[in-house]
Every structure is written in C-alpha cells, then in structure tokens.
C-alpha cells in the first residue's frame, strides 16, 4: 500500500472559524432575529429554474446532474428537459398565478437566446430574473482558467441583461458549482447576491475581492430535481417534505424570528402531468396560510439588509 507523506497530518487551516476567508463563522441561532413585512413569519422564495441542456454535452469537468447520460445523440434526456421549457413551464405559470405566488426565474442565458417567446412571457409577467449561467453544460469549476471564466460570466450577464431588459442582480451557477474565483468574478460583474452555497437557512454576507455579495439560501435538499430524480421519491413525497419543512420552520419562528422557505423547482420535473398536482397543492397550502409572505429574492433581501 502506498503510504502518505507526513504533510497529510498537517492542518494549516486548523484554527478558529472557517478553513477559508469567504465568510464569518456564525451559527444561525446566535444571529439577530429578522422580522418580515406585515408580521409574516415565513418569507417564501419560489425560484423556477429555466435550463438549457445542450445535446452535444462536453461534460467539462463533469457531466452536469440532470444532463445527458447516453451516447450522442441522447434524444431521450435532451427532449425530456426541453419538455419543461415547452409544456411544463406553462403549467407552472398557471399554478403560480392561481395561487398568487410571486416567483423568480433563474434562466440560462442560452435559453433566453434560443426561446424569445418564453423570455418575452417571463418579461411581460414582470417577475425578477436571475442569471443561471450560460447553459447547463458551461460549468464553473475548480482549476478553470480565470480568463475563460471571466468571459463566460460577462457574456452570460451582458446578454441576459440586454435580452431581459432587467439589471440582473442574482446568480445561480449551473449545478451550484464554482471555481475558486467565481464569487470574485460575479461581484466584478454587478451581481449582488448568489445562491451557490447551501450552508445556511438565512442570507449572510459573503466576502469577495471585489466587495461583498449576499449569499441567498436556496435549499438543494428541497429541490424537486434532488428529491424526485436524485432521491427517487414521488412528487407526493416531495409535497410532504415541503409541508413538514414549512411546519417546522413556522414553529422555529416562535423563538427565532422570521425564517425563509426557499423552493427551487424545475418545469421539466414538477411540470409533468402526473406531478403538477402536487406543486399546486403545496402552493395552495402555502398561499392560504396567513404566516406566509411570497416575494422575490430581491424583495426578501432588501428587508433582510435593512435589519441585519
């Protein structure tokens, strides 16, 4: 058996706080309680991820979760993802409107380029748009050439800002994956908040070389793709988990101030005919509850920033 160098038993970062300098170590429990508008207890952030998975996937440096898995041309995964942008998302629009939910839309820039009708529909709705990277196969990753990544971020943001007419402030990397430079590059390109770090239930300050960002939690654990296609639970099980999470968070607000329930949903997952009912049930339950404030990520963050 090959043996290890003695450096393997050295721990250069073994000291108080984190093993990096991106944010301060702080338990949520010890932070100042936040009050949402109109004495609401739970801020509900519903984020719809609108994604383009190219069929000529390069998989650098890995195959994106949810991407192509078969030899080229993987028509089955390509078209099943595309289903979300053609059919599922229109079911989403109806459900969101029926229950008076304010969503945000995290859009791959390449999708905005390819489907002007879909982008136009989102623009007309007036909902906030976040940039979800260029497309699902353009990953940000450790060891990525910094110039290449700078160009990728700039192109993704410049194009989406131009096409959407919105001054995009929010970012979610494809697969929530980053290089060591991603937060610095985002801050240099006018991003003020991002959702790649799933290490908290409330927003927090995140340091970059180009000023602070706000890390805005978007739970992977309640993501429909994660629960239904990674964990292989039913859509009904997804709904149970959201309900249980909501009940628990609501209880926690009795002693800890306002909480955030973030739901990241994908039209190619919950937009299927056999699943949409469970999304509707969840939205109905949440919208009928008087403790819930449904708002865009930016509106939630504005309230948080004023009180932090």
């Amino acid at each position, binding site marked *: *058996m*090959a*043996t*290890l160098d*003695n*450096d*393997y*038993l050295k*721990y250069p*970062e*073994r*000291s*108080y*706080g*984190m*093993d*990096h300098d991106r944010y301060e*170590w*702080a*338990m*949520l*429990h*010890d932070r100042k309680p936040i009050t949402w508008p109109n004495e609401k207890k739970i801020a509900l952030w519903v984020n719809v991820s609108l994604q383009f998975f190219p069929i000529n996937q390069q998989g650098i*440096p*890995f195959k994106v979760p949810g991407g192509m898995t078969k030899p080229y041309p993987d028509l089955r995964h390509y078209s099943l993802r595309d289903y979300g942008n053609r059919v599922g998302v229109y079911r989403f629009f109806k459900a969101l409107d029926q229950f008076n939910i304010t969503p945000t839309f995290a859009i791959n820039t390449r999708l905005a380029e390819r489907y002007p009708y879909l982008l136009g529909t989102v623009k007309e709705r007036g909902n906030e748009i976040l940039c979800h990277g260029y497309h699902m196969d353009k990953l940000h*990753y*450790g*060891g990525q050439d910094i110039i290449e990544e700078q160009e990728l971020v700039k192109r993704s943001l410049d194009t989406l800002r131009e096409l959407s007419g919105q001054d995009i402030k929010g970012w979610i990397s494809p*697969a*929530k*994956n*980053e*290089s*060591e430079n991603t937060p610095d590059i985002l801050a240099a390109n006018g991003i003020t908040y991002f959702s*790649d*770090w*799933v*290490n*908290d*239930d409330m927003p927090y300050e995140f340091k970059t070389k180009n000023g602070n960002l706000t890390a805005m939690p978007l739970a*992977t*654990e*309640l993501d429909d793709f994660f629960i239904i296609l*990674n*964990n*292989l*639970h039913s859509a009904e*099980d997804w709904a*149970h*988990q*959201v309900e*249980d*999470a*909501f*009940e*628990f*968070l609501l209880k*926690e607000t009795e002693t800890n101030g306002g909480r955030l*329930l973030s739901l990241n949903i994908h039209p190619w997952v919950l937009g299927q005919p056999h699943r949409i009912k469970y999304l509707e049930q969840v939205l109905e339950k949440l919208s009928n509850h008087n403790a819930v404030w449904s708002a865009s990520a930016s509106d939630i963050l504005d309230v948080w920033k004023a009180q932090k």
Partner: protein
Amino acid sequence: MKEDPGYYDYWPYENRPRIQWPNGAKIAFWVAPNIEFYELNPPNNPYRKPWPQPNPALPGYTSRDWGNRVGHIRQMNLLEKYGIRGSISLSTALCDHHPEIIELCKERHWEFFSHGIYNTRYTYGMTESQERDMIKDSIETIYKHTGQKCAGYLAPALSHSENTLDLFAEVGTELFGDEAGYYSCDLFHDDQPTPIHLKSGKKFVSIPYSLEMNDTIAYLVQKTTPRRYGKELMDNFDRLYAEGAESGTIMCIPTHNYQVSNAHRIKAYEEALEYITGHPDVWVTTGKEIAQYFMDNYYDTVLADIETKNKKYGNA
C-alpha cells in the same frame, strides 16, 4: 491482508446470557450525533477522493457546513427535550474551528469520542506511526477542550487500517491508562456488546453503532423519505425492545446535523424519539456508559458463553 479481521469470535444470537441494563431496562438507547468538519480543500489521498468535483467542491462542503451553522442547535434542542445526552462522534479539529458548539455540548454533559481530526482525512495509506499520531492528536484534543478522557472511537469517514482498533486502545492506555480507549463503534456485527481481541489483551468492547439506522446511510445511500426513516427507527426499536426482555439489546441512532436536522426531516426524527423515550424499560444513555456497564457486569459472563458455544460443536 487477512480473510477475517480477527477481532471477535462467533457468538450465535440464541440462548445468550441475560443482560439486564440498569433498573431492569430491556434496551440501552443512545444517540450519536456526528459533529464533523469537512475541509473545503483537503489534500489528496490516493485511496479515496474526498469530493466528486474539483476543489472547491461546493455541493458537499456547503451542506456539511449547514449542519454546523444551522442544524446543530436544532438537533441539540430536540435531544434535550427528550432527555437524551448525545454521544458525539467528533471531528476533533472542530474544537479549534467551532468551540461554541463544543461548549454547548459540554454544558449538557454530552460525551465526546474520537472521529479523527477531519472527516476529509482518511486512514488509508497511513503508516502505523502516522495513524498512531493522528489518533493521539484526536484524544489529546478532546481532553484539552473538554476534560474528557476519550473512551470510544469511530474512524474518520469509517476509513480503517488493520491497526486501527489496537492503536486506539494503546494510545488510550498510554495517555490515561484504563480510563480511555476501550470501546469501538467501527464494527456492525451484532446488536449487543462484544468483547474484542486486541494484540495488547486490553479489555475492550465493540458497542453497536448502527449503520442501518444512520441518517446519512438512510438519506444519502438508501435515499429514504423522511417519514419512512422515522418509521424504520420505530420498527428497529420495537424489535430490539421486544428481544431485550430475553437479553438486553442496544439501539443506536447515529446522526449528522446536515441530514437529520433539515426542516423537512426533523419532524419524523422527533416522532421516533418521542416514541422510543415514551417506553418504560428504556435506558437512555451514552456509548461510554453502555461500555462501562457491560465491562463491569457482563464482560466475563459473555466471554464464558462465547467459549461454551464454540465448544458445543467443536472449534473451527
């Protein structure tokens, strides 16, 4: 390499001597929260990759960090509510990184046992002296920060060598005599404690720490739904409680704050804890207390029974 690690003898699960836990309890119930620190940029180990993506591997790292920032308090409050002291499987570097968590557990008289330094540093490839140093560092760190003489060990990320149990016991003796290094959570062969053979002949036991009830195995490997996991915990308890009338059993729930404390999972966990602790003949305890009680009262009886049973049809 050996075909059998050689730590214990065959001991059939029938007609065993009757173990009775304190106050006639049929089952010893303990919860082992793993309080871990995973590194953002761990060094390479030729035998195991810490993260599937190149560093910085956000998906795994950030979810573990969530456990410390958000999840810990949730589980701690819950255990307190049901009168359970945690037996912490500790990445001992967490004493340096997050002493606040250590203080909260100390105030509640929880047990700390060693789970290595970081959960991203594996035993694979370590020389005997490197592994000895790593284990010694971990026991010394626990003592320095908590005053506790570490009784138990669960190898970091369940990465073992052929020497792991021997080294843990030997380092425990070297530092604190018989007061440290006497139980292991690394073996999953039984629902009752087992005397373990070590090179040194030190009195040492394996205490059941269930992988099957481990939340990370349930959620990440089996991909169980939270409500189903809660049901499995209750089913596991029901059977062990019933069998405990014949000879005392052990139920352990090993947990991870980044799994079980999620808002969508903690309710199912609470229901199980409420159910289990609501039964009369349950000894709600810690890993160390079980090991001590067994060694003080049943160790020799069990050794004799193992010997008798192995003679019944002749030795292998």
